Structure formats: C-alpha cells, structure tokens
C-alpha cells in the first residue's frame, strides 16, 4: 500500500515518469489491434440482437415442476428444432418454474405445434404454455431515437469542451476516445456473443458518459500543466501533457477501481446467482466499458491530443523555445562543470553565481528532484575551494549578529 502511495509521490514529483505520450505509436498500435479485433467480432460474428430488436416468437412454459426442470435447455431446444429448424433459439429459465423460449417468428400453425410439443415435453397443460409475438419495437424506434439523442449530445459536448478548453482538438480527442470505448465494448459483445438487449443499450450509453467524464478529468490536468508550461517555457507541450497523465495516474487507478468494484460484484452475483438477464447484460457492458474508458483517456486521448496539437504553430514555437533554452542551459552547465574542474580561475566569480542559479533551474525542468539536493549542497558548503563572491568572503564578522536562541 505504501508502495502505491510512494508511486503516487514519485509520479507527481516526476521522480518516476512513464513516457506515455512519447511512446504513442505503441498505444495507437495496441488500440488499433483492439479495434481490429472488435471489428472482426462486429462484422465477422455480428451482434447477437435480443428478441426485442429482431422480433420473434416467445413461448413460455409455466408451472414446470422442479423435477421437469432438469436439462430444460436441451429438451426445449430439441422441441423447437423439430418445429423450426432455422433461426437461433434462446432458452432461459425464469424464476423457479418457468422456461422461456425465444425464437424467430413462427407462423401460427407452427406456434401452436410448438406449444403442444413443449407442454408434452415438460408435462404441463397446453394452457400453461403461452405463445406471444414480440414486435421489433426496440430495434426500430427506441434505438433510433437513442442514436439521434446521441448525435445531439456529441455535438453539444464538442461545443462545450471547445469553449471550456479553448481548443476543439481536446473535444476531438475526447470524442475519439469515446468512440474507441463504445466500439470496443460493442465488439466484445459481438465476440463473446452476449445478447444485446435494451438493457445493454443503456449500458453502452452509460459507458459513453463515463468515458467522456474520465477523459475530461485527465484533460483538465493536462490543461493546467500545459498552461503552466506555456508560462514558464520549461516543458514542451508533450512533456507537460505526459506529466499530467502521470500525475493523474493514481487518481485514474483509484477511480476505476472504485467504479469497477460494484460492477464486478454485480457481475459475479449476476452470473452465479441470477443467470442471464438485465442485470448481467448491463454489468458486462459497464465492466468492459469502464475498464477500456480508463485506458483510453490515458493512453489514447492524451497522446492523440499531443499529436494533434504539436503541429500547431504556437505549440511548435513554444517547443522550439523550450529546446533552445534547454540547449543553452546545457551548454552553460557543461561550461561550468569544465570550469569547476579547472579549479577556480580568478576573476569570474560573478559568472559563477549566475551559473549556480541557472543550474537549479535546469534541474527543475528536468524534473529530477535528487540533483536539486546537490545544488543546495554546493551552495551551502564551500568545500570545493571555489572562488566566492567578495561579499561572502568578508565572513560573518560584518554580518548582523543573530540573537541566541536560548529557550
């Protein structure tokens, strides 16, 4: 635990830093692979739409006794197979004594036959088997409306983010991350063959909200750091963004753990105790979505943002300034080191002092805290035999006397 908080400290101070922005090609590739996989799932296997989308017939066998419940899936499947060999059939147990069979739309005669056969198979009266037609109402209307709402939402969010961050590129990066998340989740759905029910559509929408939320939190830190970098000219845009990602890393991990914990519990409880249903559908969508949402806001959105913005004239100028400044400083540092090695040439004490001050600056921008100590040490002790400023050479005699701290 304390290791984790030390990691947080190190990440904050820059003592340890993961070069996420610099290695963006790797992350792009990684997510390209992820997206490719999900596209394969999406177009290869296709989404397994629930009966609410495709429409179809649903048969419910109620009043099934516990002994008859054994192996219900296989048996009901066989019955339906005999009546309607085509089409996918899903069979689920609902409650204690009901078997639900969903299949493609059956003509009336077939539905009647299936009713009789199912009643036979499970030893119940034909009246206890209900057959109903489920219209594809969701697929046609609700999803369509949700998509329209989504488009409006994305447009609005783009506007708001553009105004808030003063650049449309952050909005674009956030949206790319968002699409990445939803696409990936939907792809996983297709790959694993999880049924897409109205509940999972709602799950997708939740992911959307979460993904954009998470990205904004990271971007807000990026904004803060980069603004600071613009002021001080000590970090390039990419470095500042990278530091921001590192600094929010602990937050991101904590947040995703906290968000994932309840969902994971639902998933475990749902799979082990409840069986397929709204709860599990939703939990799957959320679990995958939240995990990939956290990933994308760190590893996709920020590098992409840097990628987009680095070409801007302003940023290029800024970066060039930073580089120049750093080179100048490095040269001065090297020169100073040489002078120090040459052991004190007389007459350039003034330069020396400037050099020390600049050295401290340089270490700061490098983000290495440890070397700052050396700077302090150098200044404090006069052990190197270096030439000191005449003012300092005069010694403590002429300095104001300090009162003794007798307490």
């Amino acid at each position, binding site marked *: *635990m304390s290791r*984790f*908080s030390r990691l*947080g400290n190190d990440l*904050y*101070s*820059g003592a340890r830093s993961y070069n996420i922005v610099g290695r963006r090609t790797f992350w792009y590739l990684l997510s390209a692979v992820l997206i490719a996989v999900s596209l394969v799932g999406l177009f290869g296997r296709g989404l397994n739409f629930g009966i609410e989308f495709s429409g179809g017939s649903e048969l419910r066998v109620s009043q099934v006794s516990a002994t008859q419940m054994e192996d219900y899936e296989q048996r009901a499947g066989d019955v339906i197979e005999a009546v309607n060999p085509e089409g996918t059939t899903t069979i689920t147990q*609902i*409650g204690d004594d009901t078997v639900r069979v969903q299949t493609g739309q059956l003509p009336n005669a077939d539905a009647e036959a299936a009713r009789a056969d199912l009643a036979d198979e499970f030893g119940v009266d034909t009246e206890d088997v209900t057959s*109903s*037609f*489920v*219209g594809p*109402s969701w697929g*046609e209307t*609700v999803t369509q*409306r*949700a998509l329209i*709402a989504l488009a409006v939402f994305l447009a*609005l*969010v783009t506007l*708001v983010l553009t105004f808030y961050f003063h650049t449309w590129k952050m909005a674009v990066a956030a949206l790319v991350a968002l699409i990445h998340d939803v696409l990936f989740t939907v792809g996983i759905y297709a790959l694993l063959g999880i049924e897409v029910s*109205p*509940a999972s559509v*709602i*799950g997708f*929408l*939740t992911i959307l909200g979460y993904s954009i*939320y998470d990205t904004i*939190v990271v971007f807000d830190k990026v904004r803060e750091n980069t603004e*600071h970098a613009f002021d001080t000219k000590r*970090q390039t845009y990419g470095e500042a963004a990278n530091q921001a990602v590192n600094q*929010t890393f*602990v*937050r991101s991990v*904590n*947040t995703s*753990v*906290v*968000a994932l*914990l*309840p*969902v*994971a*519990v*639902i998933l475990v*409880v*749902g799979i082990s105790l*409840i069986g397929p*249903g*709204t*709860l599990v559908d939703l939990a799957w969508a*959320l679990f995958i979505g939240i995990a990939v949402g956290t990933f994308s806001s760190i590893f996709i959105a920020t590098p992409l943002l840097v990628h987009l913005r680095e070409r801007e004239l302003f940023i290029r100028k800024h970066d060039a300034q930073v580089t120049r400044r750093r080179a100048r400083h490095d040269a001065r540092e090297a020169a100073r080191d040489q002078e120090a090695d040459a052991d004190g040439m007389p007459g350039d004490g003034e330069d020396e002092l400037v050099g020390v001050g600049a050295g401290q*600056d340089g270490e*700061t921008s490098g983000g290495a*805290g*440890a070397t*700052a100590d050396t700077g*302090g040490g150098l200044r*404090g002790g006069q052990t190197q035999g270096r030439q000191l400023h005449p003012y300092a050479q005069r010694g403590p005699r002429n300095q104001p006397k300090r009162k003794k701290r007798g307490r």
Partner: protein
Amino acid sequence: MTTSTPAPRRDEDLPGAGEGSGRRQRRSGGRRGPGGQRSARMRGPLRTLLSLLVVTVLLFGGIGVARLWAEPAASLTPQLGLDLAGGRQIVMAPLTEEGDAASADQLEQAIDIIRRRVDGGGVAEAEVTRMGQNVSVAIPGNPTADQVEALSRSSQLSFRPVLVAQPTGPQAELPEQRTLPLPPSLIQEQLEELEQQQEGSGTGDETGDSVEEGTTDDGTTDEAEQTEENRGGTRLPMTEDGTEATQAPGVPADDDSSTAPPAEEETAPPADPSSLAQITPELQEEFTALDCAADGVATEVASAPSAEPTVACSVEADEKFILGPVELTGSSVTDANAGPETVQGGTVTGRWQVNLTFDGEGGQTFAEITSRLYGYQQGEAQNRFATVLDGEVITAPTVNGVISGGTATISGDFTPEESQNLANQLKFGALPLSFEVQTSEQISPTLGGEQLRYGVIAGIIGLLLVFAYMLVQYHALGLVAIGSLVVAALLAYGSVTLLGWANNFRLTMAGVTGLIVAIGITADSFIVYFERIRDEVRAGRPLRYAVDTGWERARRTLIISDVVNLIAASVLYLLSESGVKAFAFALGLTTVIDLLVVFMFTHPLVSILANTRYFGEGKKWSGMEPERLGAKRSAYLGRGRVREPDVIAPGRRRHTREELEGGVV
C-alpha cells in the same frame, strides 16, 4: 504554482502573521475552540453543512408529509418499475380504419385515448408512453383479459341526448353561504352549485348573455348553433345562466323548472329518445349509486348497448348523466376544428369555439335531434346533447337553435388549448383508431423481485468494498469519503422515493444499475478532490492551504465533468424514449446529487477537519501526512543551517514560502 493561484488569503495567513496564527492554531486545537479566528474559519463550512442538513430534512420531511396527509399516500420506498414489480407490458400499434399506420397527430391522439382508457379503466398507476410509432402501456400487477381487451378496442365517439344531469364531486357540497332550506334531494344540490357559481363569478352571467346574443345573430343568418360550453365546474351555472337570460327567473324558478320536468315527461311517448320514461327504477338506482370518482366507470359505459339509455360521467368526473340511446355516431363527423369565435361581420370576440361538421346524413339526423331538443326549455337537462368518447362525456352543450346545415359550433369559456383539445377529440374520435397489439408480455414479479434483491445485495457488497478501498487509500480521509457516499445514498433514496410519489418516477432495473454505477462516479469526485489536496501537500503546501487551493482546482474539474454528464442526461431524457429516458433521469439525478454532496458536504467537512489538530498537522493515519506524501519539511539543523526540502515542485524556480516554513502550519 503558487504564483498562479488567485486564492485570496486571509490576513492571518500572510507571511508576517504566519507565526502567530500557527501558534494560535495550536493553542485552540480542540474541536470546540471559542477563538474568534477559529470560528470565522469554521463558520462558512458549518453553515453550508447546516443548509445541506436542511435540504435533507426537507426531502425526508416531504416524504413524511406526503405519507401522512397526501392523497394517495406516498410510499416510504421507491416506486418500482414494471420489470421489478411485475406486470404486463403491452405495445400497441394504432391503425386507422383503412389499416394504415397512424400519422403523428393521430398518434398523439391515440396516446391520449389510451391514457384516458387506462385512467378510466380502473387500471391504477399504469404508464402510457410513446414508443416510436407505437403506444406502450405498462400495467403493474396482473390485469384481467377484459381490461387488456378494453384498451385495444377501437375508439368510439357517439352522441346521446341527456336525460338527467347532476353535478358531483366536491363542488356540489361547497356552498353554504345563503340560508336556504336544505331538502335532501338531488335538485337541491344542483341549486347550491348554481348559487355558488352565481355568487362566485359575475362574469359568468355576462358570458351567458353574450353567448345568447351570438346565437340570435347566427340563428338569423344561418344554421350555426351557439351552445354553451360545459367543461369543468362552470357547466351547470352557465346552463342556468342561459335560463336566466331568456326567462330571467329568480332562483326559486330554477328549482321549479328542475323539479317539474320529470313529472311532465312521464307521459311522453317512449319512442322519443329524450323521453324520461326510459328511466327505469334500475337505471335510477344505478344513477344514484354511480360514483364518478370510482375506477372503471368509463369502461363499463363504453360497453353499454348503444340502443339503450345509460348512465355516464363527464371527463372531469364532476357531473353525472343519464343518457338516452345513441342517436349519432362519430363516423358522421367529417371535421372538427377550433378557431376564434366570430360574430356576424367577422369580428373576433377573443373567445374560442369548436366547429363541427357532419356529413349529409349526419347533418340531417343532427337537425332532427336539435329541433327536438330545442323544444325543451333552456336550462333543462334534456335540452343538452352529450358527446360520449369511450364512455366518458367529453362535452354536453345545450342546444340553442335548430341546426340544419350540418355545421355546429360549440362555444364557451375555452382557452385555445381547450378548444383545440376538444376539436381533436371530436375529430379523431370520428376517425376511429383501432389498436393492434404487437407485444403483450406478462412480466413475473418474482423474477423482478429476485433481480432487485440480488442487485441490492450486490450494490451493498460493492459499496462495502469501495469503503474498504477508500480507507486503505486515504486512511482517515477515507472516512470523509464514506460519509459523503452515505449522504449521497440517502439523498438518492429520498429523491427517488419522493419523485415516485410526485412524478410517478419508477425505478427500473436500468435505474438501479445506474445508481450502482453512480457510486463510482460520485466516489470519483472525492478521489479527484483528495488527490488534488495531496498534490498540493506534495508540493509542500501546508495542509490548510492545500485544502483551499486543492479545492479551487478540483472544483473546476468537477464542475465541467458533471456539466457534461448533465448535458448527456438531459439530451437523452428529452430526445429518447421509455427505458432510455428512465436511465437518463437516473443519471441526471445522481449527477446533481454528486455536485450537491461534494459542494455541500465533502468540501465543508474537509475544511473543518483541516483546522483540527489531527488532520491539520498531518498526524499519522490522517491520510494527509506530508512525509508519506513525499513532502519534506524544512528543518532547522542548528548553527544557522537549515535543511531545505529537497523536492522542488516541477516548474518552480525555487522553493515556495510554504515549503520553507514547513509542510504544516
């Protein structure tokens, strides 16, 4: 970063005063220090906490009040949606007579029709929503086949003559202002109503008069009819006003005129559809027993045989009728529209009316009816003509003339919306929509209950795990997070319950999941906030400043991210349907609660805690220990030498004042 922080500092925090304030801090470190500076620091946060307490108390007080005195009483638990409570979900596609899909206008009307049927059909607490081109009805519990059947039958508009009309409801009992003999007869009630209205509104008389004038105008030129509007409580008085306008009798005259007709009409030939001879003792009994506030009346009436008289209630359930047999059906109506009322010469009176057009045969029948009804005295119930839609009397105007041209107007005190609404009802009632049941699904309550139970169990376990994680990560500060989550949970529960009562908001499985996910997003607010505070402490800021500046920054982040969430919620709520709408509502609600809790609970609490010794000095396990967070305090090493904190915050030129003076105040 200190340089760019615009946070205003209080006097005591300025460099010169630093030492003093620090000491004072330590001295009055106890929780209830009476020191002036201290209480100033605490007052703001305490006040905020107090107002949150008020909000919470109001919320739950509202529930309590609604529970004790409201009708219907609020439940102490949230209302559950269909998928959790069980019930029947029916999706119906409205079809026109020709079998075409309904147009958008017709769809609205169809929803209206269904909603009225559901409300009137005794199906309590049903939910009617639009689902694309379809109408979705969610009925809790297990409705009978008859009820479902009643919902999907085609819409019926019919015209029946009124035999007896009697106001019901609270208005009938209200007035006691004049001392009158109170015989326990129905007529008496009518009279009282009348008096109340006459006393209450002088304008009512004027309206009656002007309508009368308009009638004479129209009567001389054309066959158009001016009748009195009779929706709402003004119906009866206006009818009576009409009586007064023509006959100018006193109140006792009304009494006479109302009591007299039944006796006269006993002898009328039974072939007359307006004949009171049709009122059998059974019908009379039924009429007396008829309670318009009860459920299921409309359904019953709608299924009454059309050739026989029946009892019925008005839409507002404030008047009940005995109606004659159906004389004209909605299919005879070719058009109905609302427009501003005009008198001769086209001058607009500023009032609204409904124009009704019949087809040839219908117009003829209507002329016969009106000529017969016109024969009755104005103010008599039999002068009125009821329009019945799905078993409810939507309007029952008096007949002020014989209408032979096939066009009638209904005028009265309409708002434009009311007249439009009535016109729609007449028009679409005339164009019967039938409903094809697309899906009719019985959802077992046991299944939903089971899901809910496990969902809640899972939520609680998840919450406990989150608590544990927060404690491990943030130590004592984690307790603040836990407290905040508990407050958020309380607020969420309270609002969902209250909304369930006030707005019929129902918690569905999607909503429950949304709430569980909200745990994560709400906790994230605290995490963002705490991490910002820690960042500031890491940068070497003393804790009290760290809380202030950390909050400044965290607040920005929290607001923008929650604003985006709110946008998502409202857009989805406004533009999407059914399940998605419920989800969007849950999302919006939790976002608002999140903001509320962070601003009004977490931050004030942390500010207060930062002023205590334990947190403010970063004691062990407080979750804010500067050493653990990597901030080295400067230390005096003796002999005038000071060990400086070795970490210089990134981008900083030199150590900040706070770093040099120590990590804590």
